[in-house]
């Protein structure tokens, strides 16, 4: 509504301006002329909280170096100088607003005035007067005063791209949640899971134990949840092959959950007779003491395989190093980017970030984990498509000189 109004006033202004410029003879080029400021307009600044007014007027041949515009505002009494700038600056085209909310006009001066900075008794909705003055040496011109009242807007149209994307994500989210609950979703098998089988196989051959650490995360964190799902898988294999499993713990609550998980796994494999309650044991709730104790155990017992899967911080270094020197097969997985390089260089297989979540969701078939993963996949697909088509279109538009396409693409992928 507002936009159309602006457009309309702009067109009338444009016609007026072209008529004026046509009337001026070409020979007067070097003599400074006063611009026609009859197209001066003031209106509420769109998409703001109601404290700004937008004044605009057509640009013209009088906008030469050395000339300045002065914008004045008044609340009824004296005129206050609100802005002064060189005449070849500040156009409607300079506004950082998207094409769907603003017409980027190179032939129109536009200035946004923040009124509370000018009037200490400012009130939204009150009417103020505005005028513009042109000064170039002795040549001056002044527009007639125009009234406008700033008003508060209800929707920031510039942020439409953000909102649309959010709504799409919400729809996809609910769709995946309902699907995951009803029939499950497809998640590909993660290569790292094959490495787990191999490691357990080797431990059985060698007759040495397996260490599994769930890290130092609390039970509520996603990596820990994923880790318990993987522990269940490991425990099943261990029960099947009758290998020895040791799970040192940092958090007592995680330990309680893991006891259940392991017991369940032994039950499923019908090997409850070989389940012992001390498979899971508490070590210390202190980062470095935990690492030092587990280090000592690994060094003494020389396990065939070590798993470090979950949330790890600095202790990742201490743990992975000892495992590597004792010659164990090591499989790690964490979401902590800063720890991944250490795991990657000292372990045989590392689940990187989201791979860990995916492995957890793949094994547990938990609808909530699956649906999150699916929405993430959707987002990634959206990004991939956007980047590929966006780049291709931008290049094509550059070659073929389609400014409109360039504008559309660069405006969509921007935050306002």
């Amino acid at each position: 509504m507002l936009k159309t109004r602006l457009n309309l006033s702009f067109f009338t202004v444009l016609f007026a301006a072209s008529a004026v410029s046509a009337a001026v003879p070409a020979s007067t080029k070097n003599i400074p002329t006063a611009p026609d400021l009859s197209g001066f307009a003031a209106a509420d600044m769109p998409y703001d909280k109601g404290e700004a007014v937008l004044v605009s007027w057509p640009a013209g041949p009088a906008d030469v170096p050395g000339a300045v515009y002065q914008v004045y505002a008044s609340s009824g009494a004296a005129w206050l100088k609100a802005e002064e700038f060189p005449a070849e600056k500040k156009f409607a085209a300079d506004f950082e607003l998207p094409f769907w909310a603003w017409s980027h006009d190179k032939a129109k001066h536009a200035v946004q005035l923040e009124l509370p900075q000018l009037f200490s008794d400012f009130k939204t909705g009150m009417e103020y007067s505005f005028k513009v003055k042109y000064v170039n040496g002795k040549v001056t011109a002044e527009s007639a005063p125009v009234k406008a009242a700033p008003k508060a807007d209800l929707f920031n149209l510039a942020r439409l791209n953000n909102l649309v994307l959010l709504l799409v994500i919400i729809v996809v989210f609910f769709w995946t949640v309902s699907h995951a609950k009803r029939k499950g979703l497809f998640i590909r098998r993660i290569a790292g899971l094959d490495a787990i089988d191999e490691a357990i196989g080797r431990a059985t051959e060698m007759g040495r134990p397996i260490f599994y650490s769930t890290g130092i995360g609390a039970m509520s964190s996603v990596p820990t949840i994923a880790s318990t799902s993987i522990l269940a898988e490991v425990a099943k294999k261990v029960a099947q092959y009758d290998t020895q499993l040791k799970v040192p713990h940092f958090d007592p609550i995680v330990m309680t959950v893991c006891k259940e998980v392991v017991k369940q796994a032994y039950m499923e494999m019908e090997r409850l007779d070989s389940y012992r309650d001390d498979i899971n044991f508490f070590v210390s709730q202190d980062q470095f003491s935990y690492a030092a104790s587990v280090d000592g155990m690994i060094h003494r017992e020389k396990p065939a395989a070590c798993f470090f899967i979950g949330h790890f911080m600095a202790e990742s270094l201490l743990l992975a190093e000892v495992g590597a020197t004792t010659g164990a097969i090591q499989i790690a997985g964490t979401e902590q980017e800063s720890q991944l390089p250490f795991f990657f260089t000292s372990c045989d297989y590392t689940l990187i970030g989201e791979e860990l979540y995916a492995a957890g969701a793949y094994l547990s078939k938990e609808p909530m984990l699956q649906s999150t993963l699916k929405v993430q996949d959707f987002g990634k697909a959206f990004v991939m498509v956007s980047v590929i088509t966006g780049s291709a279109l931008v290049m094509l538009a550059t070659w073929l000189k389609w400014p409109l396409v360039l504008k559309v693409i660069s405006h969509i992928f921007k935050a306002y």
Partner: protein
Amino acid sequence: MTFIKKHIPLALCFIFGVLTLGSYYVPNKASENYLEVMNKWENIVAGFAFLLGLFSLFFSHYNKIRRKVDGWGYSLFVFVGFLIMVIPAITSKGIQMDGATLTGLGWNYRFLFNALSGTMFSVLAFYIVSTAYRAFRIKSPQAGVLFAAAFILIVGKVPLGQIMWEKTLGWTHVGISQIVQWLMEVPVVAGRRGIMMGLAIGGIVTGLKIIFGIERQYMGKD
């Protein structure tokens, strides 16, 4: 009772969530006032949130002392440390500098807290070196690429490395710091951005789950 215990909190979460979410798209003064009040409140609520950490630390160490578990004596030091910080703070009213001289609290920060907090993480430098020697194995082409990038960074960032590069590979006219710069501006941006995307959407989904009351882990058990 479940209404008060469960439904109202969930409804509050939904209302606060949607209102705050909406305030991003609504530029109105009312939405700004709402957000201002929320910011002030949130600031105060967060001032109490750290009590959770304080209480859980105190409870766990108090229990250790009470049950006389192995090494309970060390737990006493937790309380000693706490009091060492808090008592001078109260006597100096939370001010660290009195004119140009340190107060008891300022002294505590400079000599006690500084040393303790600074050393805890510097210990890791030692482990990095021993890991580098005993566990850093270039077993695959991937690990090789990782090492190559690390090598360039480690050598290229210090003057001695730059000098040695100039001496040995100066004839190529490619400075190591140029390679470092390129690495940080091109492949690292691509790799990091890929990880960032997953995290971003994961964060949004978690946020939605919380607002819609699907994710309730933080509320504890019924």
